[in-house]
């Protein structure tokens, strides 16, 4: 390590193979990847829906009934059915990825993937049950 490495000041542009805009239509796994990414749009939609609901509840029964009628519109139901499918897709892919993204060690040995996903699914079920219990009247 004596002289600093010499750099060429003007190098030619690196060659990069051009990627087609619709590259994700070319293979099933690519398409599924883009669908998974698009689930985020429905996550954002549901935040808006939830805030509209909370706002209506806070303003009294008349506003709440108006919100329920709006949510009863076939278009809104259709969006929510699609949103439900996408959010469940997001949840399943997210939970199943966890053991790949996180390595948990217990007393020096790696916890097997199922040792991580099983508790996550249990927590998911418990939270869902708790939320339903709270919403439906305890």
């Amino acid at each position, binding site marked *: 390590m004596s002289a600093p490495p010499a750099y060429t000041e003007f190098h030619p542009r690196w060659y990069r193979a051009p990627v087609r805009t619709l590259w994700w239509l070319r293979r099933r796994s690519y398409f599924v990847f883009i669908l998974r990414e698009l689930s985020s749009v429905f996550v954002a939609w549901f*935040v808006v829906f939830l805030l509209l609901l909370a706002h209506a509840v806070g303003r009294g029964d008349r506003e709440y009934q108006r919100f329920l009628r709006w949510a009863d519109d076939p278009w809104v139901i259709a969006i929510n059915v699609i949103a439900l499918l996408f959010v469940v897709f997001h949840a399943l892919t997210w939970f199943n990825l966890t053991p790949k993204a996180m390595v948990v060690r217990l007393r020096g040995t790696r916890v097997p993937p199922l040792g991580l996903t099983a508790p996550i699914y249990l927590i998911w079920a418990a939270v869902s049950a708790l939320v339903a219990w709270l919403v439906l009247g305890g």
Partner: protein
Amino acid sequence: MTKRPIEPYLWLLFSAGGVLAAVFFPVLIFLFGVAFPLGWIGAPAQHHLLAVLRNPLTVAVLFVVCVLALFHWAHRFRYTLYDGLQIKHLNALINLICYGGAIVGSVIAGLVLFQI
């Protein structure tokens, strides 16, 4: 892509929001978006939901879930536009819409939830 020191924090918000959305949203969308409108289950009365929404713990949890879910959307949607549509040259605009949208949404969430 340029190197930005804020990037790891955005990934952190993305992950946290991903977990909370995955845990909380399926049951909530099922109930309020599908089961109540289709009449599978009767919708709860307004005074009951109001009582639930006035509990400080509910407010705190809902606020955190909303904010992190919005940042989850911002980050993921930004990369969807990046990769899916190959529009990297609109970088600044995409960032403004995504993260700006998440910030505005968070403020609205705070205004709605803390004033019930």
